[in-house]
């Protein structure tokens, strides 16, 4: 009471306390949105035709041909890597002038082992016609087909894979995610004579397990008590 400024100081103290409690109140109802954002909502709100980065220079060098689906009215809007320019032993007419007897042991093609759905179903002549169509493949019907469009031939049986390949869930896109869509041909990844991927060693040895924490499983309280 003896200090002349005491009353004033007391008032200031009260004001400060009020301000502090106000701040705490505001702090509790922070700027966080009440519900976390869902990717699906973000997509729905912003989707539309997009002009992505310019990738013409990335796809310019690729040997590609527009995909074709016989019997469809609309042309496909994507490209497939060409095959013919990569082949060394095709067309067959480079070596074979006369029709070849497929029953004989294949001398020049000694390295080709056919492991594709079993010999009762798939033989050389299922896809090749060394008689009439030496520069192409054949459909099951016997009609000729360019090797660039081998996906049509594979799709005769693997129609589900063909559908996913066309959509983008099977196969692999080349060079760029935006711009012109160029995808690998079936034979770009699979050896048509042995289409299954072979067993081999990984190209990289992962870090030992004790240095990388495994993803921990979340245990829900009710589940935890049930186990106890």
């Amino acid at each position, binding site marked *: 009471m003896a200090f002349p400024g005491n009353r004033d100081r007391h008032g200031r103290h009260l004001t400060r306390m009020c301000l502090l409690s106000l701040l705490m109140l505001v702090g509790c109802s922070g700027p966080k949105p009440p519900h976390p954002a869902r990717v699906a909502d973000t997509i729905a709100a912003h989707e539309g035709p997009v002009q992505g980065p310019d990738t013409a220079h990335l796809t310019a060098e690729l040997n590609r041909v527009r995909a074709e689906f016989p019997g469809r009215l609309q042309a496909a809007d994507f490209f497939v890597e060409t095959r013919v320019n990569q082949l060394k032993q095709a067309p067959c007419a480079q070596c074979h002038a006369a029709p070849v007897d497929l029953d004989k042991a294949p001398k020049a093609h000694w390295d080709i082992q056919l492991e594709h759905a079993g010999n009762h179903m798939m033989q050389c002549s299922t896809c090749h016609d060394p008689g009439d169509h030496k520069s192409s493949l054949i459909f099951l019907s016997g009609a000729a087909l360019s090797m660039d469009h081998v996906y049509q031939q594979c799709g005769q049986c693997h129609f589900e894979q063909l559908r996913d390949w066309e959509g983008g869930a099977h196969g692999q896109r080349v060079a760029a995610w935006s711009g012109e869509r160029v995808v690998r041909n079936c034979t770009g990844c699979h050896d048509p004579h042995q289409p299954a991927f072979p067993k081999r060693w*990984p190209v990289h040895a*992962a870090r030992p397990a004790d240095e990388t924490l495994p993803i921990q*499983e979340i245990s829900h309280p009710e589940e935890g008590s049930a186990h106890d």
Partner: protein
Amino acid sequence: MTKSSSIKTWVRRLLNPEALRYLAADDPEGDRSFAEGAAQVMDKQLDRRQALKAIAGAGAAGAALVQAACAPLGGRSEEAQHRWEEFFKKNYRLMTETERAETVTRLTKLAADDRGGAPHIQTTPAQPGVLFGYAFNISKCKGYQDCVKACIHENNLDRGENMQYIRIFEIENGQQSLASANGSYYHEVPADGHYYLGTQCFHCENPPCVDVCPVGATWKEEDGIVVVDYDWCIGCRYCQAACPYFGRRFNWSAPQVPPESVNREQHYLGNRPRKKGVMEKCTFCIQRTRQGKLPACVEACPTGARVFGNLLDPNSEIRYVLANKKVFRLKEELGTEPKFWYFTD
């Protein structure tokens, strides 16, 4: 008069040339520049950053002097200056275009000194209308780890610690738990009766790692990529603890990359060299994807198990996967909303 104001007055009087006149009276040729310079500093209002910058400038000048005297070739003073300026630069998000260009120039010069070749460091921003998404086909992955190798080379990962962003888990058929998965297998693959599942940073729409960062050194870009400012990170590893997917990696030691295998096509927020004590993680190969290229892991995958694209483009491959395949994400119940889906054939 309060105590503090009396001290202030006393200091002012001490440093004021007028008040000091009598001190120098017996030496009329005496140098008074120190007192005058100090008085100027006292009169000027400085904030903390400006003061640090002034000290930095003085320090750089001093270091430069010493180095110029010791090194007859020169050039070290410029490097010292660059290192000081790098130390006091801003958070990447707060930089102006000019400041970004300046730091890129400095980093390019410093990296050229360090590793014997100048890198190209981009600052390409996110493009409107782009939201990156990723899908991983667990039916197709055979565990070859070509993706891991490609990632290590593309992103200049630490070879000393054998760091990798991607982990491929070998899981027994019929099992779904990652706790019992083998993340460090090394034998011929695919092993009979097993499937393979790869993880990396999932670039969550609600990233918990970003929420916990005390210094704002990590954030989600407009195109959905969660990035780290390696020069702003203080290495507290809160983000590593917050990530439910073990997506983040810490540099316990200075990263080692052989100079001949350094990828010099870099992005400020991507694969530019990191230092000891900072966090890093997958950036969806920001240096590639912002140019329209595919991430290195997607390109390297020999089985086509990896799909990457723009979620906002209804015709993209990733959208086909989401619309037509059975997809799932890890720990969906957490609400982190990863932009990384798994699917089967």
